[in-house]
């Protein structure tokens, strides 16, 4: 064997490999997939009213200077019912909330609002899920924190839990 150092090459490669493993083990795994829409303006949309007696929702309306929530929901979504009390609590604390109803029928939306309350200023009807897809939202319910300029600052996937309410209020307060 002319060059004995060649024999150490496998050991060196193994060392590099294990270095990567150690690095990966000590860095905590990220379980949350960051939305690509964070810190970007809301996509453009203009949704008709979701039922009788409510206003539709336009993306331009989200840039009126007041930080707000946009809640993606549906009357057929069981977890959304569990979320209703938390939205009411946020509403009571003075947080403006807009809704986007996904693939929903006007009668069903009206029934949902009657039964679980209506915390929404406006509710747009997204019949084809097109806005939902544009937002990169993968299910219902999801909630977006929008600052006063219509820019998405945070995406909450799934039901807002009661202990998250004060944090959301504080975050929206801070955006003012």
């Amino acid at each position, binding site marked *: *064997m002319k060059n*004995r150092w060649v*024999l*150490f090459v*496998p*050991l060196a490669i*193994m*060392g590099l*490999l*294990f270095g*990567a*493993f*150690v*690095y*990966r*083990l000590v*860095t905590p*795994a990220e379980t949350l997939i960051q939305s690509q829409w964070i810190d970007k303006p809301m996509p453009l949309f203009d949704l008709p009213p979701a039922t009788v007696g409510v206003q539709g929702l336009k993306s331009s309306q989200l840039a009126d200077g007041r930080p707000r929530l946009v809640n993606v929901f549906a009357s057929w979504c069981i977890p959304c019912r569990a979320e209703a009390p938390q939205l009411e609590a946020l509403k009571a604390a003075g947080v403006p909330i807009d809704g986007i109803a996904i693939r929903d029928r006007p009668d069903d939306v009206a029934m949902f609002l009657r039964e679980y309350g209506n915390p929404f200023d406006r509710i747009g009807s997204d019949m084809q899920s097109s806005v939902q897809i544009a937002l990169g939202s993968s299910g219902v319910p999801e909630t977006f924190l929008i600052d006063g300029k219509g820019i998405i600052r945070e995406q909450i996937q799934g039901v807002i839990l009661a202990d998250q309410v004060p944090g959301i209020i504080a975050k929206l307060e801070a955006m003012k």
Partner: protein
Amino acid sequence: MIAELGLALLWMAAALACLSLVAGTLFLRGGSRDLAALVRPASVAQGVLTAAAFGLLIALFVRSDMSVELVARNSNSLKPMIFKIAGTWGNHEGSMLLWLMILSLSGALIAIFERRLREDTLVATLAAQAALSLGFFAFLLFSSNPFNRLPVAPPDGQGLNPLLQDIGLAFHPPTLYVGYVGLSVAFSFAVGALITREIGPAFARAMRPWVLGSWIFLTLGITAGSYWAYYELGWGGWWFWDPVENVSLIPWLAGAALLHSVAVTATRNALRAWTVMLAVIGFSMSMVGTFIVRSGLLTSVHSFAVDPERGTFLLALMAIYIGGALTLFALRAGSVAEGKKFALLSREGSLVINNLLLTTILALVLLGTLYPIVAEAMGEKISVGPPYYNKVAGPLALALCLVMVTGPLLSWRKDDGRKLWSRLPLAAFAGALVLVLLVIFGGKVGILPLLGMTVAGVVAVASLAPLWGRNLLRTPLPTWGMVVAHFGVAVCLAGMGAESAFIKERLVAAAPGDVVKVGDFSVKFVGVKPIAGPNYTAIEGLLVATTSSGSSFAMRPEARTFPGLMGTAPTETNEAALLTRPGGQLYAVLGQPVPSDDGTADRYQIRLWWKPLVWWIWLGGALIAIGATLSMLGRAQLLAIWRARRARKAQERFAP
């Protein structure tokens, strides 16, 4: 009592591993021969005790003893018996015990059967095997005790992932494990031979049947796993380049390289350092693969949600074993004298090219599998998918197949190529014929499938060439093995090429009575009916597929719902219906119902694929395994031993 007994057996087996290691080491450092005499029986006893412990764990699962934590978490009294048994290894602790049992049994088998090696090399090998098992005993006993009792037994268990409740999958992990862990024998042989510096044909011949044996199981495991993914996941694909598939492919590639290079060492006493290194790499890759899967480094269906502490333990263990073996290699391999020389145009020459190609493919697959981890360390999130693998591994694999054409037709040491040139034209003609037919009748075919099918034609003919002009009855078994295995590669390659090139797919929302055309079939959707299985409910669709020649076949795809046990959510799986025809398979999946607006009967999403020659892929895999088995039987010289024994008996009978 069963659980406590099992734990006690594990501790005793660990103590025996300790004994083998200490006695073996003392003997090798100049101790008495009495020490060496301890090692064989200790290894056998360790194997028996560990197997008994595993048997007791199975017994606990069979009895649904919910006071044992592992059973409560992974089994359920309502499960069919076969899946209760399979549940034993369908979880982290149980699979680690299975791993350990195979490791210990391998040691026991070496102790019982290996008579060709020098005694000190054998003792070193067994000591190395004991050292390997000792680390995994520590891992099992200190951080993954499968026999742990619960303070209070729950009324029933939490069940097993419904996807895993499939007869094929029940036996897929044990098969792969035998393959993975079987490579530990080659690893220990390499370490043993490095310690005693006995690296030569005797060592290679002793190691060869073990390499072949574990490689057979790896081949079967990968083939079965691919078929399972094909019919159970309902996606219709047979290879996804999923990290977990890759980590089974990597040891397989290492094993393939090893069993070819070990042939060179055994026959020609060349490539010695290289063979030793491959033997170390093979089992190292098995361990790295298991570690990647288990530690959650890469998320996948196969990760049993392991805490980081266990990951660190496994990593430390592997660093000791692989690092130790590679250090030993670096220090000792330099003193291994270079083997015999050979010309490039020779059997050895083509086997060297084979090895270089195989290890390059191995490195590329490993790189693709680990790249996301490395990239993330640099702050980038990336996933590596089929386009990368197909592009880099595909052409190399085809080149490898071409080497496979020439290699077996060359003689050892030096060849004038006469046999090669006389037999090659027919193979080349077969390839050209396939190519011409494809270009004329095939329509638009991708370049890789086109080349794949052409090369398959060449290899199919060339793989049979070593048999020409030979007395088939007198052809040695290993030659038959090589021919069958290489022919299997051609069959597999043809299947892959044809499936990728000519697949037909339809996705429709069909109402009962609708007819869908796919390939040569018209498929009529008759309707659906609810059915109940042993632990699930399902909607079963009835499809009638009619060929252009008029024969009809019923197909019954199912959408199954497994109830959530102990408050977990219900799980849905799709059971595809497969119709196997000589020309391929028709694959049907029943999807979601599509409610109709006008009150008529619901329509159903139905996905249909016509996959030409797809079953050749697994047939090829089976042929490769059969070929390797023939070769192993020949190499293990079972026949020779049997003949010798018979001859001896005959002599004794006539002795005065």
